[in-house]
């Protein structure tokens, strides 16, 4: 998607005023839905995402059951009104692919052997989209899973980096995603730095990849702290301490 559009100026400021290593504003709230077992509302730049978890519950039909562990089924869906040109409701190939890579990332950290023959459903709804929805979705899913009491060895988190006008930057915004030179979404398990999701499209030299990955990793660690804060804010605030 090479283009001559100017996305970063001589002072290193991007179209929305951010520096190369700055994230868009992020807001996370845990436990926002009444019916779901666990849920999370997340705003990331112009993205508005709700994630909800149901389960573990018996996987039906029986032939889908895994006798040794739970099946993690994430479903990423964009609302028709979430994008500039209305999207026809229902899964398209892009949503199916994103659902798959997110399911695989989540499966890595969930202690699935504790719930054989069950399914854990993770529903991610994108209500308002502005680049980086899969990272925002996975991040919200991590909080929703913890909120549902699902046992995990880590709370997964994701963040993307990219390249615009030849410069490696953190957290692409809408214009940067459309007119930039590369997009690199990354998800990690923050406690161990293990990489759970990694995709790239565009053009990066080996050096640029290392830079971009380093930025995305830093972004992940920062957002991870926000996830934890959201959970503790919801629950620790009602656990008073008596001296």
């Amino acid at each position, binding site marked *: 998607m090479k283009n001559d559009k100017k996305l970063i100026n001589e002072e290193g400021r991007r179209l929305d005023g951010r520096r190369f290593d700055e994230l868009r504003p992020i807001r996370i709230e845990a436990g926002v*839905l*009444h*019916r*779901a077992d666990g849920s999370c509302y997340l705003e990331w730049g*112009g993205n*508005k995402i*709700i*994630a*909800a978890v*149901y389960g573990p*519950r018996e996987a039906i039909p029986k032939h889908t059951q895994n006798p040794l562990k739970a099946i993690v089924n994430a*479903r990423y*869906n964009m*609302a*028709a*009104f*979430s*994008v*500039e*040109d*209305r999207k026809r*409701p*229902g*899964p398209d190939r892009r949503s199916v692919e994103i659902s798959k890579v997110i399911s695989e990332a989540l499966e890595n950290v969930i202690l699935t052997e504790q719930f054989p023959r069950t399914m854990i*459903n993770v*529903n991610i*709804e994108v*209500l*308002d*989209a*502005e680049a980086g929805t899969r990272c925002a979705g996975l991040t919200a899913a991590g909080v929703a899973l913890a909120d549902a009491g699902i046992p995990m060895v880590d709370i997964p988190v994701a963040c993307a980096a990219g390249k615009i006008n030849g410069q490696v930057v953190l957290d692409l915004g809408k214009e940067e995603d459309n007119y930039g030179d590369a997009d690199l979404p990354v998800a990690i398990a923050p406690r161990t730095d293990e990489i759970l999701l990694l995709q790239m499209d565009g053009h990066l030299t080996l050096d640029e990849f290392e830079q971009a990955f380093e930025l995305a990793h830093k972004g992940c660690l920062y957002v991870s702290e926000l996830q934890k804060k959201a959970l503790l804010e919801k629950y620790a605030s009602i656990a008073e301490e008596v001296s």
Partner: protein
Amino acid sequence: MTIIPSIKRDYLCKLAEQGKRIDGRRFDEYRSISIETNIISKAEGSARVKIGNTQVIAGIKMDIGEPYPDSPDQGVLTTSAELVPLASPDFEAGPPGGEAIELARVVDRGVRESEVIELDKLCITPGEEVWVIFIDIHIIDHDGNLFDASSLATLAALFTTTVPAKRFEIGEDYPLPLKEPPVSVTSVKFNKAVVVDPSLDEEDIAEARLTVATDSNGDIRAMQKGLSGSFTREEIRKVIKASIDNGIEIRRILMNAIRK
């Protein structure tokens, strides 16, 4: 599907015989309503409505397209609803089933038959180009009465919609031309009791359901009966009265929310 315990069903019915509801409301009393508009930046209009714990988001998108052959100088309106698995353990992923389609069509009729949108003002070139309005209803949390929450969210979204003429390079943006909104009120019947704004518990045991949309004159604009039970004529009159009465208050809440 979640099983409803017989004990719960029996208890709700027993309370109904004494004129009581499980959450303490009167038969003709509505839960608290909250409306928030302009919540989706990509949509031309949007609103989130909460009725009790039920939460619905409606988004309005507009595009330019061909008119219907039998109304060449009128805009086109199309409504769809997604009962996404997020909102309830009983919603499954997949193409819209009967429930989603009925919901979309009932909301659509309420909007269309009340003529709240001045479709004749949405013509660009007669017979060739008109504005197309897409109403998309996204259920977020299901705790009963999706019909009313969806209708209300749709109206609130419409009343804050801006026609995106600039983006299509045919002039300046302007507010969607609208008239008086209809208000939809749903009631259900169980054990001979007819109650307004059913909560999930009440919907689960409902035998019959009736949605009535009324305008500011108290005239009826749309009706839909659902489920396999029946109503007597007297019960239908009760439902219409409850719809008109509650409609007044709901209309007031809607207009307040839009004015902000």
